[in-house]
């Protein structure tokens, strides 16, 4: 009798704890979503409303005094626009082609990197997964170390090569090293190593060649992993800042990820709309591929294969 009471008590305590945990989790979630939601909401404000609310961020350069003056001292973060308008989007899309050009810059930097890195990595991963040996393990270890090196280290050799090959100030100086970055080799090799050797042996007995084993067994079985690597790569490179700053001295070639910060102080009225346009590709990928993304992240856990 005593025992059932204490179990009941415990259960009730558990329930109360769960309610608190849920409230806490929802609060956290709101904080996590806040900046993104704010950006989207503000993109539907009119220029006038932006000026009124974010005066302290908008500066006019005063020639006579030689210093910046702000149109007001006020700053007022506001979630819901007084009047929903697509004025910002209209201006960005129809009048100032500059931002669209920068968006295009991002696309032609990121798409080739992702596409070719995946192709190169699938091939290499197959080789790492199928044939193992002392030398191969050592090579794989080298790839892991290279993968873990920060940009501050890898950009120096990248720059020297680009300089030697005369690629500086061209997009190739970013695209080529990007294609051979070892991250996706590492991840896909780990995935392909999980394919049971019995599958491959069976295919071999049926007379399949290496190319057939690769295209008809390994690739289809790794399909979801390949898709999740594509997502991870795209997000990472869509966000690039370090490489363009060093490789491209002409800011006309800069992707929007760098350029956006430069327009912030001038055209705050447009910035929100540009920001939203810039996050649309990654957000769409998130909505349609969240499960792949989660799977991809889970694959990346653990250094050893």
């Amino acid at each position, binding site marked *: 009798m005593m025992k059932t009471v204490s179990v009941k008590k415990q259960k009730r305590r558990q329930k109360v704890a769960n309610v608190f945990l849920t409230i806490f989790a929802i609060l956290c979630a709101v904080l996590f979503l806040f900046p993104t939601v704010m950006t989207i909401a503000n993109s539907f404000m009119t220029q006038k409303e932006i000026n009124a609310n974010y005066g302290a961020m908008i500066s006019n350069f005063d020639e006579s005094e030689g210093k910046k003056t702000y149109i007001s001292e006020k700053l007022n973060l506001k979630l819901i626009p007084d009047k929903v308008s697509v004025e910002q989007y209209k201006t960005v899309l129809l009048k100032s082609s500059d931002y669209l050009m920068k968006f295009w810059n991002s696309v032609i930097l990121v798409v080739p990197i992702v596409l070719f890195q995946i192709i190169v990595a699938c091939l290499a991963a197959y080789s790492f997964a199928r044939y193992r040996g002392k030398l191969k393990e050592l090579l794989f270890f080298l790839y892991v170390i290279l993968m873990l090196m920060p940009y501050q280290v890898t950009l120096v050799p990248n720059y020297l090569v680009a300089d030697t090959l005369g690629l500086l100030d061209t997009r190739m100086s970013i695209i080529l090293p990007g294609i051979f970055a070892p991250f996706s080799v590492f991840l896909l090799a780990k995935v392909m190593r999980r394919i049971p050797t019995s599958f491959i042996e069976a295919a071999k007995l049926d007379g399949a060649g290496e190319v057939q084993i690769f295209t008809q067994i390994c690739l289809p079985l790794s399909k979801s992993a390949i898709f999740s690597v594509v997502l991870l790569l795209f997000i990472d490179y869509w966000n690039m800042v370090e490489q363009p700053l060093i490789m491209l001295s002409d800011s006309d070639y800069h992707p929007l990820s760098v350029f956006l910060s430069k327009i912030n102080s001038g055209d705050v009225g447009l910035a929100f709309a540009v*920001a939203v346009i810039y996050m649309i590709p990654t957000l769409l990928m998130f909505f349609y591929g969240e499960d792949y993304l989660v799977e991809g992240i889970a694959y990346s856990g653990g250094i050893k294969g």
Partner: protein
Amino acid sequence: MRKKVKANKKSRTIKGSERATELTFIAPSLLGVLVFFILPFFVVIYYSIIDNPINKEFVFLDNFKAIIENEAFVLAAKNTTIFSVIAVPLVVVLSLLLALLLDSKIPFKSQLRASFLCPMMVPIASVVLIWQVMFHKNGTVNQIFEIFEAQPVDWLKSNQGMVVVIIMFLWKNLGYNMILFLAAISNIPGDIMEVATLEGAGSIYKFFHLKLRYLSPTILFVTILSLINSFKIFREVYLLTGDYPFDALYMLQHFMNNTFNLLEYQKLSSAAIIMSIVMVVIIGIMFIVEYWFGKDVE
């Protein structure tokens, strides 16, 4: 005898063709890695021990001495270290807590998971404006401070800038790490937990003596991953404050950028080598630790 030789020959030719496919498949990647990373790294080593690319005089450690005494490098290294030492443990602990939160019996799990992952998907450049408004001198955070009659802080132009950057780092990275922990938690054998519950182990005991033991390889992995990501904090700082941040936010990548602009190859090379040595040492320590802990669990 003859038969044996023949068989031997056959197996060797199979091996030969296997070696050929092995090499063909890896060739594009290996070639690219050699050309863009490994070979030029030797040039970097070479540049770090000569006086300049024209004279090519061998100066051994002089460049390294110069870089260690370089004020800007020391400041950048100090700031980056401070940032990493604070931000990495924070992100590891908080993401583990988030994972445990999502592992407990609460509703809306998939919606919560999506919200925690959302910052990872959003380019920093897109939301940087909101962060600027929040931490501006007259911004939202200071307005909240005013309500509680606390001193307003000029966040981005003072030593407190570090706080802003750490918050942004946590915001961006917690989701990814949380997924890694969730995957690891789901791999903990369920029967062990059940036995522990039947034996009357409390949830705190279970967490510290069982779960943490099984999670330790993941904790190490998340730590190293967060450390690597902490070196990317330059992005946030650059987008938030531009080329010339307040001293407390001057990071290693700022130093590298400025040195690239001046084309000082000797400085660049020796700085890159010092950083790569530090990274290799850290990675090495992690491998050793993972080796010991891994043995323990099995």
